[in-house]
């Protein structure tokens, strides 16, 4: 019975399937493993890369991995390519992994990453002088909660993201207490709750992300980051402490398993040329997160509208 079923299915399947003409022959049939973490921009751009590579006949698979837990995977070749590595959070780990010689820096994706203290615009009334950070010194009470009063309550990112907010509060002598959210979702759940009630809140926000496009508000302006600020106490406002400045802004880089260069040179070339504009990616994220459309639909739409663009990245596969 089973046999009959499969053969019937096979016959039907062959009738309906179109036979694509494939001029380009990939260098290897080995599977390219694209890493995706769980935020939307990475899901979308990786799906686009998936469409491009598999159109040229590569065997591609997307593998879900944790942002920070990815490095052993890349060093052993369990993961082949990741399109997003953020300097703001992964700088140290990425460079450490790069130093092993087992991974490759594939260049920047394009968008610029920023993360900083952020407040909803209705807080400007309660704390005049914002976005300048010095305003926070005088209106900490406006940001306080019962258990932190009279100090303000700053909602920081998950502990594992780092960010040096405790150091920043101390160095700039801000009357604030840092409370860490457990996860990003928990952090923004609190923002949504406060926003719906027009209640006081100040927290860690980053972009490209859907939050700054859905909620209206601004980043606090701290003294701009320089490398010396984090390393040299004499730098800046506070002469005896480091971290008396804002957070670094930075690149979003593509990375890859080093050995793979020999296996799929053309695919690696395509990945190196793959770039996206910050605004362009932000719009795609908006389609998915705010309008709730499925990722693969949005990615396929982009691929159809920008076919000439990505065909030009794949010059090595065209013949």
């Amino acid at each position, binding site marked *: 019975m089973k046999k009959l079923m499969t053969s019937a299915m096979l016959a039907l399947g062959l009738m309906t399937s179109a036979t694509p003409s494939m001029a380009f022959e990939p260098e290897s049939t080995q599977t390219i493993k694209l890493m995706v973490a769980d935020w939307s921009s990475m899901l979308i751009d990786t799906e686009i890369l998936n469409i491009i590579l598999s159109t040229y006949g590569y065997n591609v698979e997307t593998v879900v991995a944790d942002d920070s837990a990815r490095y*052993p995977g890349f060093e052993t070749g369990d993961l082949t390519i990741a399109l997003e590595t953020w300097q703001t959070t992964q700088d140290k780990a990425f460079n450490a992994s790069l130093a092993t010689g087992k991974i490759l820096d594939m260049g920047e994706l394009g968008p610029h990453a920023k993360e900083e203290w952020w407040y909803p615009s209705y807080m400007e009334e309660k704390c005049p002088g914002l976005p300048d950070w010095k305003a926070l010194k005088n209106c900490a009470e406006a940001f306080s909660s019962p258990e932190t009063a009279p100090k303000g309550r700053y909602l920081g990112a998950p502990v594992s993201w780092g960010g040096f907010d405790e150091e920043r509060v101390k160095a700039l002598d801000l009357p604030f207490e840092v409370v860490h959210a457990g996860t990003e979702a928990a952090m923004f759940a609190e923002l949504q709750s406060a926003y719906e009630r027009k209640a006081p809140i100040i927290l860690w926000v980053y972009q490209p992300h859907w939050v700054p496009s859905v909620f209206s508000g601004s980043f606090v302006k701290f003294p701009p980051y320089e490398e010396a600020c984090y390393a040299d106490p004499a730098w800046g406002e506070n002469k005896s402490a480091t971290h008396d400045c804002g957070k670094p802004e930075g690149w979003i880089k593509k990375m890859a398993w080093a050995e793979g260069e020999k296996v799929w040179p053309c695919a690696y070339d395509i990945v190196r040329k793959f770039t996206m504009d910050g605004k362009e990616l932000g719009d795609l994220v908006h389609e998915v997160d705010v309008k709730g459309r499925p990722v693969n639909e949005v990615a396929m739409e982009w691929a159809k509208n920008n076919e000439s663009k990505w065909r030009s990245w794949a010059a090595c596969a065209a013949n």
Partner: protein
Amino acid sequence: MANILAQPDGMTARHGGRALAVLAAALVAVIFLAPASWSRPPDWAIIPLTGWVGGAFNWLAREAGIGGVQVADITRMLAAAAQMPINWLKILLADGWVKGAGFNKTQLAPPLSWLGVIAVTALIGWRQSGRGLAIITLFAGAYLVFFGLWASAMTTLASVMPCVVTALGLGLAAGIWAYRSPGAEAVLRALMNVMQTVPIFSYLLPTLLFFGYGPSAALFATVVYALPPMVHATVLALRSVPTETLELAKMTGCSRAQTLWKVELPVAVPKLAIGLNQVVMMTLNMVIIASMIGAGGLGYDVLRALRRLDFGTGFEAGMGIVALAVVLDRLTQAAARNQSIGRHGLWKRRDTLIAALLLIVPTALSYAVPALAIWPENWTLTTAPFWNGVVTFINQNFYDPLDALRTAMLLGVMNPLRNLLTGAPWALVLLLLALAGYALGGRRAAVTVALLMLFVAVTGYWEAAMSSIYLTALAVAFALAVGLPFGIWAASRPKLHEPVQLALDTLQTLPTLVYLLPAVMLFRNGDFSALVAIVFYAIAPAIRYGMAGMAHVPSERVEAAAMSGCTPWQTFRFVRLPAALPTLILGINQTVMMALSMLVIAALVGTRELGQEVYTSLARGETGPGIVAGLCVAAIALVADILLKSGAARAARHEGEAHA
């Protein structure tokens, strides 16, 4: 009834008890007066265990080999082997046979049609149990299809089924081994206790090192988590086979293997079914965590929805997991029941033919009618906007009173208790626990407790451990205060049994994150939200065992009490409660274990304790700290287990003496 507490050696025991109580009171007094520097072990006493463990795992995963073959290569082969059934099930149930991708994607064959799969499952349910189960199955299936969850649910099912089968097989084998060899039992019991209480995030990273990313790593982690209850249940079930039955088997000349397969196991099936139920529940409970390392499916849908704060969609996907759990559980339970009462021949030859037709016809038709393969997106239902609206409504209208409650709890109860525990001199806390061990279980218990706590002290996680104890103790207190009385009350109302059972299964399998994030909206990040989440999760065993304890009181005793003129309260206090005590204590034990296992999830809303250490080290990719902090959680669990077991043994002695 008056001399119920009298013991033969009552006087000496009471004297000893008084001395201990005085000593304990003195220690508590010192705790309040001691200088702050005593609150943690001195730095020189800390052993750099985290570094050693991390190094050992890296060596094992990257360099170690057996006879020239690398350990990592062996585990990779295992992973590849485990991946095969998952892949086949996925092709069959979820994806169909697909060739190429991107612009060249072609579907060679569709997956089995949802209509066929649901119909066949309902048919199995009908044959095994009757119309009720068939209707439940149809409802669950319809929910998954109409809410657009079918493909994800089948992906989850594909990765869950091999887990259940593996945990079942391994659990049975280990259980049988433990039953036959007392030496093996002691080792296995200790191992299982550690496996059950070391948080899964602890060994997720090593699992990834050995098995690579993807569903097979999730499979191995899940099996480690779901195995212990099956082993315990198997040992318990085999022990409960009556000796007369075994004698009979011997007299009729059964070999050892025959006795096992033809006599012991069939007789033990009803109790094995409890283990099976827990395997199913715990496997589905893991779906969220498995999806974090590449298993996809419903767990991933939940994570994605919650990430964009779409609580409603997250809730719907979460209920999809519950639907899968309920159907899987009820089907396997029915099959086990039939096996044990010897009802065979329920499934006829004709049924196989019907099932095959039910699968083939809709699947073949789906070439012409694509809706039979994939339910069209714009025909799906959703209640998400409604749930999101509810959350917003509560937030806008009830935030202030709820926040007042949170603040009062935090400032009045939680913070003081936390400060007391983290500020107390560590040596005295250790001594106090050892004393408790001595009072309840004698010297051996005292030494074990002291050694376990000493382990926590030298790892350098003492403060974090105290925070964990504070959070767990409070959560357990709440869960028991509400759960046990409710369970006891519900036990006397048979009509409530079915709905309560369903509610408990839901609590156990609905991913915690689904209600944790709305809780964060109302209670902010921090310990209070964590407490709420732990209480919700740990209340299930409190209710379950409360009900079970009361349900199994021998009816002769209750009748005897009624005849001797006891009031209902007296019957409860002096007959029912003592008889149920061992089960209730087991319930307390399970409540503690569940609460501890939730610490890691609670870390997701910003606690500061062992769970957070484990979670953070996972996020940072450090093997050592994660495992050592996880072992500290296990040590606390074992201490609680020893104290409770000794307490239970004492209570049982009392009970026995009272009836002697």
